């Protein structure tokens, strides 16, 4: 190696790769922080905006209605925990029932997502930070509670889609032969359908529900992961460590799950982070069309729709859901892209 070329290598390669790694890392962590904020807002939404207080003294007892609302989102706790007596009833109006001088700590915004006030389509004010929609519901409260729905749909739909995709892809790639041929056709068939057309055809006869949205999104969005998993399993099938595992007498299922799956997991998870963004977008889009989350539940798609329906009279309704959806998608893309660069040494070198 001549001095000149050594100098060039020294000047470009190491610095470029270190720089790129740092850049990829910055994207990744920006995304993680942004996503963390959105998830936290979604999870703690009853503490941020609710028509019931966080802590209060009522009839001589201390109640924690909004705290219980939050804790009920934890899967198992939801069945065990119940709100204390008067706050549990659907018609209970805490704002008027509580004595005015009673001790109570209210959420930052003292409006629930479904609570209707007399200000219809009001512009942002001190009372309603982001204004109200056409039914007088507080936009901030709906935005915050909509985050919970979006996060849930995004994560669960992607988890389900990932499970289907990995199973199908692994079966196709590892088994090979006719199984592979048939499964590959199945994957291609599902890819051919524009997701929205197929989803809408299913939503036509499905009652709007969050679970329905999750399942339908998962059933149409698993193909990317499946193709990826198939290619990875096909590649790994002839690897030495798989041969070693086979010689050691492991069953094919055990080899696939315990030996090959861990090797493919990181890149598959990268694909899935982009899937979360897709699921959030599809949910809001479906809700915008009126086929997604039921109208009683808050969703960013519903918010966007009420802005669209009052385009001329209340355009301020449009911006909050737009920003929320964009931030969520951006967070997922940042994580996915940063992570992908971290995993892929080649991308690290070439990308600036």
């Amino acid at each position, binding site marked *: 190696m001549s001095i000149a070329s050594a100098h060039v290598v020294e000047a470009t390669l190491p610095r470029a790769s270190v720089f790129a790694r740092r850049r990829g890392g910055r994207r990744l962590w920006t995304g993680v922080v942004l996503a963390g904020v959105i998830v936290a807002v979604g999870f703690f939404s009853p503490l941020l905006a609710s028509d019931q207080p966080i802590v209060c003294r009522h009839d001589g007892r201390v109640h924690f209605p909004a705290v219980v609302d939050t804790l009920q989102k934890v899967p198992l706790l939801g069945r065990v925990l119940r709100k204390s007596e008067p706050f549990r009833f659907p018609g209970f109006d805490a704002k008027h029932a509580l004595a005015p001088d009673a001790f109570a700590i209210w959420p930052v915004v003292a409006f629930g997502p479904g609570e209707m006030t007399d200000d219809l389509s009001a512009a942002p004010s001190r009372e309603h930070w982001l204004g109200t929609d056409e039914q007088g519901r507080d936009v901030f409260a709906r935005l915050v509670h909509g985050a919970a729905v979006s996060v849930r749909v995004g994560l669960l739909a992607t988890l389900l889609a990932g499970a289907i995709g990995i199973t199908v892809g692994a079966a196709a790639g590892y088994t090979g032969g006719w199984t592979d041929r048939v499964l590959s056709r199945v994957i291609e068939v599902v890819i*051919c359908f524009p997701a*929205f057309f197929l989803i809408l055809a299913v939503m036509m006869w499905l009652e709007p529900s969050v679970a329905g949205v999750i399942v339908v999104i998962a059933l149409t969005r698993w193909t990317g992961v499946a193709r990826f998993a198939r290619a990875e399993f096909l590649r790994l099938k002839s690897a030495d460590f798989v041969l070693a595992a086979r010689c050691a007498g492991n069953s094919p299922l055990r080899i696939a799950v315990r030996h090959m799956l861990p090797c493919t997991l990181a890149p598959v998870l990268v694909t899935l982070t982009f899937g979360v963004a897709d699921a959030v977008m599809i949910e809001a889009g479906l809700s915008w*069309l009126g086929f997604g989350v039921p109208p009683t539940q808050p969703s960013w798609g519903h918010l966007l729709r009420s802005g*669209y329906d009052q*385009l001329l009279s209340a355009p301020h309704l449009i911006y909050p859901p737009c920003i929320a959806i*964009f931030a969520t998608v*951006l967070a997922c893309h940042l994580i996915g892209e940063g992570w992908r660069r971290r995993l892929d040494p080649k991308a690290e070198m070439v990308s600036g």
Partner: protein
Amino acid sequence: MAVCILRRFLLCVPTFLGITFVTFAVIHLAPGNPAAAAAGAGEARMTAGQYERLREQYHLDEPVHRQYVHWLASLVRWDLGLSFRDGRPVAEKIGERFWPTLILTVSAIAVSLVVSIPLGVHAARRAGGWFDRIVAGTSFGLYAVPRYVMGMLLIVLVGVRLDWFPFVGLTSRNHAELGSAAQIGDVVWHSILIGACFAYPLIAYLTRFLRDNLVEVLSSDFITAARARGLSERRIAYCHALPNAMLPMLTLLGLMLPSVIGGAVILEVMFSWPGMGRLMFDAIMQRDYPVVMALTTLTAVVVLLGTLAVDLLYVIADPRVRSV
């Protein structure tokens, strides 16, 4: 090469059958399928005559697998049945809605190629420079904006506030009175905003993709050889590196086709654009099963043909694929 193309064609047959099967299953095995709807549970709007026609059309008195075969046979003969709503042939209804969507899709792809190629090439030639960084950041951010979000923002900011472009429908109210040149101009004028919503994610993604590919290609040996021969940088970039980087882009376009067409539903409803997506939405609102089935199948077949075209182009463009 002929064998390769023929094999690719034959592979489409099972996929096509799969597409029809999925559509049929989704609509017929569902609760509230056409038969149940026809039986009148909650669908009092259907008359006896309509039910009779429906039974005839779908052979509802026969077992499900026979129904499928009948439907498939009529589909292949391009007999898509009659709409429940107005009794018009579905093929005719789709025919008049097909062009607005196709025009949008094709022009969006064309515009995105025209814009993203110079951007990508320029960014790749000065990788790491300020232009590259601006392009990378902008396209990354733009790609994270869902199309319907962009649509809403364009409607509010450009359509309502600035009042630059119309955002409702395909034509103006006085369209019929205009001359033929002005009529075309009118349609183009109306398609600017919705067309932008179709094009910008493609531009963003293709630019990024092309740039990354080009950077890789530009570091390969044959580029160094071209430089050694004294070719200009511009010539190297466009004539030597670009064709190699364009190949993966073709595949990418094929992969993006479903999402481009699928995104048409929301955007066309949003902009009152009389295309297939809007027709799909209306048909679903009206429980118009023949239209829904035909549209779902047709869009999937269009995507299938699109990917087929991409694969064939690939075979023509890349000699290495032919021998496989």
